[in-house]
């Protein structure tokens, strides 16, 4: 089997567990929040490393992000990726622009067998990038994969559709999006962290990639969802109150 060329696309996200919502404006407070690599994308990196361990090959990680994404790419290089590509972004890219950039970088790399992505990002959870990439590159996709087997000239992926699991196989090149159940991302050792310093991180700008696409979708507002109880109390258990309660529940669509 010839050596496999694996590409993993990762996203930089804010750590939602640290995110607070401004109680007055309902807007999330994003200032000062650390960014991190999207958790599910680390599963994609882990899966790439497992494939490489079994079949050999090379792993390139690509991200669109701010300059400090370089530090987080080093983390993925320490895990086991061979090289990384950073496409500096301005932060206002929508999924169509992000995917155009990733596709242009993948075309620049030229040869690839498996492109891995997380099923979605923990911040927006649109799940668009994998399927869009497959469309732009004109190659097959298997999405929501929770078990992947790579053979000589094909891949077999089990798709987790919630109520059922569907097994599909595809020729290569192929886009695979993975769920977090697929594996447990490894923590790099100290030696691996030190070794990652020597691995290359290329910087390819939008201009050098020749991507001029503009965002098609505009975010009008970003608000946290607050959960509040209605605090409606029907005090005494009189027939009249019970009737009111039942009417109310029917009106709210809780029962009916």
């Amino acid at each position: 089997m010839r050596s496999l060329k694996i590409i993993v696309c990762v996203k930089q996200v804010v750590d939602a567990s640290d995110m607070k919502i401004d109680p007055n404006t309902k807007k999330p407070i994003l200032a000062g929040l650390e960014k991190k690599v999207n958790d599910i994308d680390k599963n994609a990196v882990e899966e790439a490393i497992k494939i490489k361990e079994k079949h050999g090959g090379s792993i390139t990680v690509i991200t669109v992000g701010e300059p400090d994404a370089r530090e987080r790419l080093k983390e993925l290089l320490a895990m086991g990726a061979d090289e990384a590509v950073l496409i500096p972004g301005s932060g206002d890219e929508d999924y169509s622009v992000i995917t155009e950039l990733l596709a242009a970088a993948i075309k620049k790399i030229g040869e690839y067998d498996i492109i891995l992505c997380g099923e979605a990002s923990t911040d927006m959870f649109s799940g668009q990038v994998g399927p869009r990439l497959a469309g732009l590159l004109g190659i097959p996709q298997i999405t929501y994969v929770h078990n992947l087997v790579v053979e000589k000239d094909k891949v077999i992926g089990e798709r987790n559709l919630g109520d059922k699991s569907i097994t599909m196989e595809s020729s290569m090149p192929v886009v695979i999006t993975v769920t977090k159940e697929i594996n447990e991302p490894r923590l790099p050792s100290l030696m691996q962290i030190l070794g990652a310093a020597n691995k290359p991180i290329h910087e390819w700008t939008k201009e050098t990639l020749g991507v001029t696409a503009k965002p098609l979708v505009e975010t009008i507002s970003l608000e946290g969802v607050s959960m509040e109880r209605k605090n409606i109390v029907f005090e005494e258990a009189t027939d009249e109150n019970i009737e009111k309660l039942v009417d109310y529940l029917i009106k709210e669509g809780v029962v009916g």
Partner: protein
Amino acid sequence: MVLVYSERNELAYELLCKGRELADKLDKKVVSLVIGEDKSIADDMIAHGADTVVVAKPPVSDFKAEEYADILKQVVDEKMIENILIGSSKNGR
């Protein structure tokens, strides 16, 4: 024209409600796409607000995004669709 599609009928009915609102507001018609062998579902789509239902024969294989996308593309082109509502199920996405 507004196109509504979901492989989950219940979701398609919900989308038809919104699709109907949108079409009325924009003075357009609602096209519902059903990909499957069971033509009787077309009546349900009409009952839930569709003006026209396109019933497409499903591809021979199980769900492949590209084959379903091809069917949608064909309907979008033929019916001159301007707005599309798709159910956000895993296959929908």
